[in-house]
């Protein structure tokens, strides 16, 4: 068998992505000092909504912060122990335990005291998400507003859901005006919403490029790149950044610049990774196995749409679909629709939805196998995973599940993970690259 060796080079945008991330966490840390409006708004919530309160708005987001703490095993250990000391169970959502622990200890991962927002907004895609910020608001003694976002299994856009969400978002705006004493500016909301729409759409376009053989990006790199699509999706800097990334990745595709020099097989990833053990992706490189991405990185907030002709791809912007964007209600409708279409949210209604998505992805991204992380720290995204596994197996797609925890090191055995990976490679007839 001849093995093709591709040209490879580091991604120029990578450093910038790291800076965006670090600057964000620092801006949270310095919000009070800088006189900014810090609000506890989780990344799963309607991040752009408080943008109408002023350009100084900064969200402090639980999921990205919980993940970052997970990347620092020593601090994470302290945090989960602080949460457990308050009587909370060890098997609860690990992001919550990391975030809460840091809050209870009043220690911020990037230094100083734990930042306190002026108000909180949350919604519940999984029960843990609904309860996470409820307690944050209580602990901080700040006003909080919960939103309900229905998970319905239908494929079609549901007008009733849109209307319901719009009603709640409208009420939430009035509530924010009341608790902050600020006047809400719809123009600012529109700008933030447009940033969100466009940047998450471009992120989906970037992910589409990874269908190419050889893949221009691998999951390790994607973990750095996807962060703004989650945590900073309402920001103009994110939009500008993704435009650059798109251009660079297009260039890589045109010039066959690959993520790995040898692409023996292509894998799809499922779930949140063990953040403290990203070394597993390095291990896969020894097999020439490129990990293409996951629904978590592509679609947690990446914007995808089922087109009327049955195909799918990056979502068309509301304006491209002829949606009016004049009044507050128009903007809220566009926002509600954008969230309703998010594949990850849809998949949380029933496992069969995610199974369908997975089978389609495996085909479109030319994946040879799937690697699933049964993440004991996230009951939310573990929903339906065993059924998804069965569906993949039934379709003859080599698949493994390994057990672990995204953000609690105590629950993962590195040796076992590597062992599982070896098993998957064996199933696919892939050998380690030696001397190449």
């Amino acid at each position, binding site marked *: 068998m001849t093995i093709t060796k591709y040209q490879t080079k580091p991604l120029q945008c990578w450093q910038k992505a790291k800076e965006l991330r670090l600057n964000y966490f620092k801006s949270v840390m310095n919000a009070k000092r800088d006189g900014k409006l810090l609000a506890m708004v989780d990344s799963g919530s309607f991040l752009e909504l408080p943008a109408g309160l002023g350009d100084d708005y900064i969200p402090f987001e639980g999921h990205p912060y919980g993940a970052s703490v997970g990347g620092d095993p020593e601090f994470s250990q302290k945090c989960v122990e602080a949460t457990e000391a*308050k*009587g*909370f*169970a060890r*098997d*609860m*959502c690990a992001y919550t335990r990391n975030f809460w622990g840091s809050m209870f200890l009043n220690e911020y991962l990037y230094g100083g005291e734990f930042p306190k927002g002026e108000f909180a907004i*949350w919604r*519940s895609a*999984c*029960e*843990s998400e*609904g*309860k996470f910020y*409820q*307690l944050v*608001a*209580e602990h901080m003694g700040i*006003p*909080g*507003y*919960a*939103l*309900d976002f*229905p*998970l*319905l*299994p239908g494929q079609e856009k549901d007008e*009733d*859901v849109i*209307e*319901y969400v719009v*009603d*709640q978002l409208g*009420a939430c705006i009035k509530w924010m005006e009341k608790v902050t004493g600020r006047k809400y500016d719809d123009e600012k909301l529109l700008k933030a919403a447009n940033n969100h729409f466009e940047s998450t759409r471009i992120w989906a376009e970037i992910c589409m490029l990874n269908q190419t053989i050889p893949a221009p990006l691998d999951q390790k790199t994607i973990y750095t790149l996807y962060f703004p699509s989650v945590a900073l999706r309402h920001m103009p800097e994110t939009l500008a950044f993704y435009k650059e990334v798109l251009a660079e990745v297009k260039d890589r595709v045109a010039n066959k610049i690959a993520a790995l020099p040898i692409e023996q097989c292509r894998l799809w990833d499922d779930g949140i990774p063990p953040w403290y053990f990203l070394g597993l992706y390095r291990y896969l490189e020894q097999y020439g196995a490129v990990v293409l991405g996951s629904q978590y990185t592509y679609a947690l907030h990446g914007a995808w749409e089922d087109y009327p002709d049955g195909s799918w791809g990056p979502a068309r912007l509301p304006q491209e679909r002829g949606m009016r964007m004049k009044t507050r209600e128009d903007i809220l409708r566009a926002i509600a629709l954008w969230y309703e279409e998010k594949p990850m949210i849809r998949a*949380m*209604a*029933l*496992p*069969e939805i995610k199974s369908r998505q997975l089978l389609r992805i495996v085909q479109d991204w030319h994946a040879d196998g799937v690697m699933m992380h*049964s993440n*004991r720290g996230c*009951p*939310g995204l*573990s*929903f*339906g*995973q*065993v*059924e998804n596994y*069965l569906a993949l197996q039934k379709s003859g797609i080599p698949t493994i599940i390994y057990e672990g925890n995204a953000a609690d090191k105590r629950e993962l055995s590195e040796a076992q993970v590597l062992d599982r990976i070896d098993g998957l490679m064996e199933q696919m007839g892939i050998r380690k690259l030696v001397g190449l």
Partner: protein
Amino acid sequence: MTTSFQNVIADRHKYARQWKARTGGKVIGYFCTWLPEEIVYAAGILPVRILGSHEPQEMAERHISSMYCPLCRDCLAQGLSGKYDYLDGIIGPFSCLHIRQTFASWKTHVPLEYSYYLYVPTIGHHAAAKPFWVKQLTKFKASLEEWTKKPITDDDLDKSINVYNTNRRYLRQIYDLRKDDFPPVSGAECMEMVVSSQLADKAEHNVWLKSAYHEFSTKKERKDPGIRLMILGSENDDTEFVRLIESLGATVVIDDHCTGSRYFWNYVMPKEDRLSAIASRYLNRPACPAKDITQERRRFKHIPKLAKDFRAQGAILIQQKFCDPHEFDIPPIKEILMKELGIPSLHIEMDIVWPLGAYQTRLESFLEMLQPALV
């Protein structure tokens, strides 16, 4: 009379089969008490709640993650093993993702005529929730009508609402008897009444409740209740567990369980628009943690009130292993009961198939600890 309740629980499958043979009606299984049963019953269908079998199983692990609660795995195993082969359909009202997984795997792997996923708003008291849910209920009603090929009329709904409200009234009256210094009815008996109500035809169940109420309210011989306890938390249909507690010198005088007070506490208040009346009842019923995500914390007002009204001296907080919603609420509830009412609590993590003996020592020490407070 209590034997009627016990018989339905012990022979739930036989009961449902006989009901089917007797009435020619359909039987549906449902998961979780957020189902507006009135609409189902009005269609001439018997809704039976799928509950734990408390038997060890291995079938569900092939479909549900081991980090999901034992109840949802136990329920699925019963479906996969054919214990519920008489069911014509299943309904999954939206509550928590564990039991939603059971619904999903059941509908995928067990042949059925009908299945329905019913969304239930998470924030029942938000002004936007009711109009949205009434629309969902209208679709649900239409789906049942299409399935049974029979319209559900206002008259059907009125009759159904009446049967359900009667059931609630009797159960509340019986629960109220427990406020007495010498409650004539035990916690285990009450749990049997509520659990059997989730399995039996309510019209028939009402007849049994009526005579049970008469029997209990006129009971002369009443024993000292010992320590008055409240039990609350995750789904718990284990009447033997309650019996064990009550064999140790205590009486469970009140609960906040979906197999207890949460199931029947409030009524449907009749209104011209029947679905709206039904929606109001469910959206405003005592919440479980998954439906109590706002800053109002409705549970944290309701639970201490129950504890106070029924004069509980201690509380047992039950948590099915891995039950996320309750894991979030239990520590603050423990604190509130202590701070507001001086009520100590015991937190028990349960696995539906663990033998009861495993809890006895902890229960005994807890009750012993409560003893001096009573002197």
